[in-house]
C-alpha cells in the first residue's frame, strides 16, 4: 500500500526530531558504561597517571570479601522485598477487590503516597523512628511494657540489614499494589461470578483465579523489583552509610565508597561493572526460572 505523502519525512527532519534526544541519552546512559569498563582495567587513583593493568582489578574483586558481603546484603534485601512487599501487595489487592471494603479511594491514595517522597526524606524519617532516645519504635515498645526489647536499633550489626529493608518495603508498597490492581481490573467479572456460584470463598478466589490470571504481571513486577533493589543507595546512605562497619553495606554504596572515600577510581569502576554484571545476571536467571515454571 502506498503511504500518503504526509507520512514521509526528510532525513534532515528526522535527525532534527531524534538527534538531540539520542545524543544526550547516549552521552549519559551509554558512554559512561564503556568509559567505566576502560577505567576498570587501570589502577587510576584520580591523579594524572593511570597504568593499564589488565584484569587485575577483577581478580581482586573476586577475592574481595567486602564486595561479596555487599552483594549478599543486596540479595537479603531483594528476597525480603519480594516476599514481604509483593506478598502484602497481593493480599491487599484481593482485599481491594472485595465488596466489603469501604473508602477504597482513600486507602489507595494513602498507601501510594510514600512512593512520591524523596528517598532521603524516607531515610531520615526511619532513622528517627529507630532512634534510641527519641524514636517512635522504642516509645511504642515502652508503652507496651516491652522495655527489654529497647535498643539502639541501627547500631546492632546483626539486625541492621533487616531494619534498613523495612523503609524500602514501606515506601514502595504502593507500586506493586497499583500494578496488581490494574491487572485485576482486566479480569472479566463473570469469571468471579461463576466461581462464586460454585461456592468459591475469598481465599480460593485469590488462589485459583486472581493469582494465575495476573501471574504474568507478577513476573513483570518481580523483574522491576529486582532491578531496583540491586541498586538501592540513597536510603542506606542516609540511614547508616553502610555501617556499623560494613554490616549494612550494599553494592552501590560500596562502589561509591571505594571511588569517593578512598579515591580508587580504577577499582571503583571494576566494582560498578561487577555490580552491573551481577544485577543483570540475577534478572536473566530469574527470567529463565519464571519461564521454566510457566511451561
Amino acid at each position, binding site marked *: 500500500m502506498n503511504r500518503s505523502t504526509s507520512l514521509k519525512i526528510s532525513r534532515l527532519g528526522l535527525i532534527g526530531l531524534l538527534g538531540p*534526544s539520542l545524543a544526550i*541519552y547516549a552521552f549519559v546512559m551509554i558512554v559512561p558504561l564503556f568509559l567505566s569498563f576502560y577505567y576498570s582495567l587501570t589502577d587510576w587513583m584520580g591523579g594524572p597517571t593511570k597504568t593499564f593493568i589488565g584484569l587485575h582489578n577483577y581478580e581482586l574483586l573476586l577475592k574481595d570479601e567486602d564486595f561479596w558481603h555487599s552483594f549478599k546484603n543486596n540479595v537479603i534485601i531483594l528476597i525480603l522485598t519480594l516476599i514481604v512487599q509483593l506478598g502484602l501487595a497481593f493480599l491487599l489487592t484481593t482485599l481491594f477487590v472485595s465488596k466489603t471494603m469501604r473508602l477504597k479511594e482513600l486507602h489507595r*491514595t*494513602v*498507601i501510594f503516597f510514600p512512593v512520591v517522597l524523596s*528517598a532521603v526524606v524516607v531515610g531520615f524519617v526511619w532513622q528517627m523512628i529507630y532512634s534510641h532516645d527519641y524514636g517512635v519504635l522504642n*516509645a511504642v515498645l515502652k508503652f507496651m511494657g516491652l522495655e527489654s526489647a529497647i535498643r539502639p536499633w541501627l547500631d546492632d550489626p546483626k539486625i541492621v540489614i533487616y531494619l534498613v529493608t523495612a523503609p524500602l518495603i514501606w515506601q514502595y508498597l504502593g507500586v506493586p499494589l497499583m500494578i496488581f490492581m490494574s491487572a485485576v481490573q482486566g479480569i472479566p467479572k463473570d469469571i468471579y461470578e461463576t466461581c462464586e456460584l460454585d461456592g468459591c470463598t475469598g481465599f480460593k478466589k485469590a488462589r485459583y483465579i486472581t493469582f494465575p490470571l495476573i501471574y504474568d504481571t507478577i513476573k513483570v513486577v518481580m523483574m522491576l523489583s529486582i532491578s531496583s533493589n540491586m541498586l538501592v543507595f540513597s536510603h542506606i546512605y542516609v540511614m547508616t552509610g553502610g555501617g556499623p562497619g560494613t554490616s549494612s553495606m550494599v553494592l552501590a554504596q560500596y562502589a561509591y565508597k571505594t571511588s*569517593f572515600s578512598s579515591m580508587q577510581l580504577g577499582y571503583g569502576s571494576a*566494582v560498578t561493572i561487577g555490580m552491573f554484571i551481577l544485577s543483570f545476571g540475577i534478572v536473566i536467571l530469574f527470567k529463565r526460572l519464571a519461564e521454566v515454571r510457566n511451561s
Partner: protein
Amino acid sequence: MSIRQPFRKLGKLAFNVGMAIFSFACVFPIIWIIYSSLKTKDEFMLNAVKLPAHPEFRNYYKAFVEGKMAHYFISSGLNSVIAVVVVVFLSFCAAYALSRFRFRFRNAIYTFFIAGMLIPVYGLLVPLFLQFKQFGLYDKFYTLIIPYIAIRLPLPIFLLESYIRSVPVELDEAAHMDGASKFYSMTRILFPICRPAIATIVILVFLDTWNEFPFSLVLVTNEAFKTLPVGLTNFYGQYTSDYTTLMAAMVLSILPVLAVYLAFYKYIIQGMTAGAVKG
C-alpha cells in the same frame, strides 16, 4: 440467616477498622514528622510521640533562614522546571518521529530508548562522575540538568509514542490536505491531543527531579547547585541533635510534593504503573 446478619455486619466493621488502622500506620511516619516539627526541641526530647502542646513555627524559620534551605529550594526548583520543559519537548519530538514515520533503524532506536527503563541508573554514578570530570562538565550550574534530562527520557518517549500512535493518522493527513505543514500539525494538532499524557510526564519528571539525590551528591560541590535532598543531608550534618529543626526542613521539602500528589495522584499512579502493565 437472620441470626447471622449482625455477625456479618460486625465482621465487615472489623475488617474496615483493620484496614483503616493499616492505612493510618502507612502514613503515620509522615504525620509524625509534621506535628513534631511544631514542637520545641526540649518538648520533643521529653516525649517524642506526644502531640505538640503549643504548636509554633520557630523551627521553620530556623530551617529556612539559618539552615539556608532557601538556596536548595531555588536550585531544586530551577532544575525541576528546566528538566520538565526540556524532557517534554525532546520526548514529544522523538515520539512523534517514532510513531508517525517509517525509517531504517526505527525499531532499533525505539528499543534503545526503552531499554533505558531497565538500566539501573544509579550504577552510572561513578562512571558519570569520571566522565563529567574528563569533559570539564563537573560542578557547573548546568551540570545536573544534563543527567536529569537524559535519565527521564525513556518513560515519556514510551508513553507519548503509544499515545500518538493511538491518534488516527487520517488526522495528520487531513491537516496536510488543508495545507498545514508537519510542524503545524505536530505543534497545533497533536500536541494538544496529547495533553493527558503530557500532564503525566510533567508531574513525574517534576517529582523525580525535585527528589533526586545521588547525582546531586556526586556531580556538584558548590552549595548553590545542590538539590534539596543533598541540602537535607548537609543540614543534618550541622544540626545533628536538633531533630525538630531537621523535621521542619523535611516538611518544607515535602510540601510541594504533597500538593502535587493530592492534586494529580490519578495521573501519577497511572504514569508510574503504565510501563509495567503494558510491558
